[in-house]
Each structure stands twice: as C-alpha cells, then as structure tokens.
C-alpha cells in the first residue's frame, strides 16, 4: 500500500478513535507507531522522540506559568482587582458587566488560562451581578465571554504552546497579544453597553477619585505581574522560562509576604493541581511531537500545502477557511489538542504559501480556538460554569450564545486587520 495513503488513513482513524473517547495522547502516539513500523523504523525511534521531546528549556515555561497563576489564585488576590475595576466603571450603564470584563483583562495577565479565569472569578462575578439585579443569564454570559481574554493577554499558556510547536518567538507572540486583548475587551464592553442601556443597570455608588485611588493601591502589586513579564521579555532580559520563574517568585512574595493570605494548605493544593494539569498537557505534547514528526516524514504538511494552495487563491480566503474550520472543530475537540495538532500544519502553509505573518496567524488562531470553548458540545468552560453555578448545561449555552457576536467581531478585526496584532512587536523592533 502507498505509504502516504496509509498515513492519511491512519490520521482519519486516529481522529475517529479520539472522537469515540480514546485518550488523545495514546491515539496520536499509536497512529505514529503504526506508521513508523510500516516505514521500517525501529521502535527505539518512538521511545527516543518521547524521551527527548519535552526536556527543552522552553517547555519549563508551561508548568511554571501555571504554578504562578495557581499561587496567585490561592492567595485570593481576585477581590482586590474586582474592587478596583468597580470603582472605575461602576457608573456606566451595565456597570458590573464592564467590571467583569476589566477584571478578566487584569486577571488574564496573571493566570494565562481561560479556565483558571472562569474557575476563580466566575462564582464571585456571577453572584455579585445577581445581587445587583442583573439577569442570571446575562451574568453567566458576560463572565464566560470575558474569560476568553485570558489566553490572549500575556502570559498565555496557549501562546507558549503555539510558539514551541510552530517555532515562533514567544516574546513576539506575547507582545502580539497585548492590543488584541484590548480589542476583545472593547467589543464586549460595547455590546454590554448596548444591552444594558435599555435595562437600566447602573450602580448607585457615586464615582469618586478617592475610591479609585484607594482600590488601585490595594490592587496594584498583582497588576504589575504582566508588566514585569512582558517588559522583561521585551527588553531581552528574560527568556520565557525565566519570566515564568520570576512570576512564580513574585506570586510567592505577594501571597506569603505582602498579603499573607497564602496558606500552606492552599499552596499544597495548588501544587497538586498544577503537577497533574501540566503532566496531562505535557504528556499530550510529547505524543503530539512524535505525531508531528511522523507527519513530516510522511510529507503531509507539503501535501496539505499543495492541496490548500491550489484550492484557495488569496490569503484572506485561507484565513477565513482556517477560522471557520477551527470554530467548527473547536466545538468538538479540546482547545489545547486542536492547537497541537493543527498549528504546525497551518502555520507552514499560511506563512510560506500565503505570506501571512506567523505572529498574526498564531494570536488569531489561539483566540479562535478559545471561542470554540463556548460552543457546545465540548466547551470545557461551559461545563465548568455548570458545575460552579448549578445552572443546567442548556441554559449556560444559551447564556453565552449572544456573546459570540462581539467575540466573533473581535476575531474578524484581528484576522483582517493584521496591524492590530503585529503593530506592537514591530514598533518595539521585532
């Protein structure tokens, strides 16, 4: 049998067994092994790829950023940020909705993960909005939608993963994510303003510069985290791994010395969760690297490039196709997995055949995949929200659905106005 055909067949089979519920890492690895055996490679090659795929220095950034975010969470810094955001935008129609978005924007810089954002801010934000007379559905929708900013504003674990897999500079990706995060926040806040104006959701507390100043001082130390990280990386002082290390040390300093709210038990739980979450992710990455290597041996990226470039003529068409397929796939495949499988294929084609900027493509793809978290049936954030609030799954889905309008608007802006993404890294000389 033709080997290339065999490989395409194997990819199809592994996608089917993944959909049926086989652990993703094992399906990817298994597919790779069958092909390697057919090609006549020894089994040692498989073990070699697994043993030397994740021992890279950059990979350390993934567990370390996760640890920093978890420790910040464990030290209960979120309510400080909430108060600060409330003091600024409380008076605007839809006040608490905007607080919610700003809160995510600030917190995003620390957690780097949409799920962490939903888990730590979600219950508090939904409760606060309901207390102030907001509709529960609106509260859930805003909280989920605003959590999508997390993976775009640095530090961002999906962007680190993308950088490693597609071999794009992580510093550039981080810088590229800064402006789009504000674009997303802007789109969401515009939408909330329009919805809330008709319903009269306005805070009773008068605006005061004193409150802003006081809450700012309380919230300032954690808000410095993204500035330290992005600043250090931009100036070339830190590598991504060193930035992640500094973030961990800073989180320990804030939780243990400044606020003294980080208990030993909370730190222990954070360590347990980060150890298992990063093992889960890195185990898939190790197998995805093996799978990716097999794809290269089998010339799949080139074949796909030829097929795609003969079908689509313009970069815009390619971008549109990529986004539509990611949104559809994002509904059924978990975001990290989708990123690991598709990033190497699509980035090669996008940059070489269509001349797209890899940073632009990376940030846009990551955001697109994050929106996939809000579309059933496999939206991890949706399940998390259901567990946290006890609201039925169907209602959670219905709550977030209207927010897909501003989110997709932001996505289209990022996709077709590349300057939004690449202006900052370019201006800073990258």
């Amino acid at each position, binding site marked *: 049998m033709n080997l290339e055909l065999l490989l395409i067949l194997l990819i199809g089979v592994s996608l089917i067994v993944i959909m049926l519920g086989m652990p993703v890492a094992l399906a990817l690895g298994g597919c790779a092994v069958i092909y390697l055996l057919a090609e006549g490679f020894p089994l*040692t*090659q498989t*073990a070699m790829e697994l043993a030397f795929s994740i*021992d890279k220095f950059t990979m350390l950034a993934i567990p370390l950023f996760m640890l920093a975010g978890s420790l910040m969470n464990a030290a209960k810094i979120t309510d400080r940020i909430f108060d600060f955001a409330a003091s600024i935008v409380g008076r605007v129609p839809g006040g608490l909705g905007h607080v919610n978005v700003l809160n995510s924007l600030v917190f995003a810089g620390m957690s780097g993960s949409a799920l962490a954002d939903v888990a730590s801010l979600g219950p508090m934000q939904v409760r606060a909005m309901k207390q102030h007379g907001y509709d529960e559905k609106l509260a859930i929708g805003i909280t989920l939608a605003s959590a999508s900013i997390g993976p775009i504003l640095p530090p961002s674990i999906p962007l680190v993963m993308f950088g490693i897999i597609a071999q794009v500079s992580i510093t550039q990706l981080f810088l590229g994510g800064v402006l789009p995060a504000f674009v997303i926040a802007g789109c969401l806040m515009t939408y909330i303003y329009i919805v809330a104006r008709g319903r009269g959701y306005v805070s009773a507390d008068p605006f005061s510069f004193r409150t802003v100043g006081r809450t700012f001082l309380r919230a300032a130390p954690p808000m410095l985290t993204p500035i330290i990280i992005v600043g250090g990386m931009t100036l070339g002082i830190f590598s991504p791994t060193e930035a992640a290390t500094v973030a961990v040390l800073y989180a320990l300093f804030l939780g243990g010395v400044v606020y003294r709210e980080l208990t030993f038990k909370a730190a222990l739980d954070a360590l347990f969760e980060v150890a298992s*979450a990063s093992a889960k992710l890195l185990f898939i990455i190790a197998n995805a690297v093996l799978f990716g290597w097999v794809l290269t041996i089998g010339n799949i990226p080139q074949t796909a490039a030829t097929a795609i470039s003969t079908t689509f003529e313009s970069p815009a068409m390619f971008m549109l196709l990529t986004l539509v397929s990611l949104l559809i796939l994002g509904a059924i495949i978990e975001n990290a997995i989708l990123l690991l499988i598709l990033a190497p294929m699509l980035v090669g084609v996008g940059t070489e055949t269509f001349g797209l900027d890899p940073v632009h493509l990376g940030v846009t793809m990551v955001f697109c995949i994050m929106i996939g978290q809000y579309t059933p049936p496999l939206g991890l954030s949706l399940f998390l929200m259901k567990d946290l609030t006890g609201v039925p799954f169907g209602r959670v889905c219905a709550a977030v659905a209207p927010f897909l309008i501003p989110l997709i608007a932001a996505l289209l802006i990022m996709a077709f106005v590349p300057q939004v993404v690449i202006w900052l890294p370019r201006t800073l000389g990258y």
Partner: protein
Amino acid sequence: MQPEAPDGTGWRRVAANPEIAVSMLLLIAVAGISSLQVIMRYVFNAALPWTEEISGMALVWMTFLGAVGLARLNLHARVEILSEIAAGRTWYELLEIALDLLGIAFLICVVIGGVDLVSQLSHERTPALRLPITYQVIAIPISAGLIALFMAIRVLRRIVGIARRPA
C-alpha cells in the same frame, strides 16, 4: 487545562496519589532550580551550566510519572461526548475495552522500544554533568509499562462487570 480534581484535598489527596506526589516534588525541584538559575544569573552574574540539563530531566520524570497517576485515576484528556451519552451501556463498555486494548498495544511498543533504547544509550552521558543519559530515557519504558498495567486492570474490571450483569 484544570484536571477534574480527585477526591479530597490537602495531605490526604497527596498521600492517596503517590505518583503525583513525586511529580509535585519534581515540580518544586524545577521551580527551585529555575529560581536558583535566575538569581545566580541576575544577582551574581554567574550562570550555572548544569541547570537546563537537570530541570529537563526533572520535567520528563514529572510528566511521565504524573501521566501514570492520571492513567490510574482515568483522568487523561479525552473527548467525552460519547461517554456522557452512553456510559453504562454494554456496547459502550465493549467499545471502551477495545480502545483501552489499542492503547495498551501502543504502550507495549513504547516499552519494547524504550528498553532497547536504554541499552543502546547505556554509555552516553549528558554534556555538562556527565550523568548517564539513561537516567532520563528509562522514565519512558517504566511509565509506559505502569500506564499499560493500570489500563489492563481497568479492562479486567470492565470485563468482570459485564460478565456479572444479568442477561
């Protein structure tokens, strides 16, 4: 990528999951070594040459031991649509057995390849610390073997479960 937390919290949970407990220690080691490196480099301006090697090795062990724990708890990332719909049905149990057996077959290949690789590389050493490279490589066959073992136990449990079911 938060995992569905296994039962309990605190020390009780750590003690109930020894592989993940070791993973936690390795995570602390990785964070500690990286911090040491950052401090040596920026405060004392004397970068240590061996930190990347050691933390890379620790990361491999952390990941693959953690993967053993996740396999025992059945928490590896997978698409759960079908299991939400059909959990408990006999045809679905049979399907899960088949998928687990496929996984076990892959893991056995990894064990065989890993053992061969360990003997092939038995004289290789790391560049900075001159540690045997097998310290890192051996994590692969050991963890693949343990994951296969836990999956095999689950397959047996499922078979027993189906056999005991009234026809």
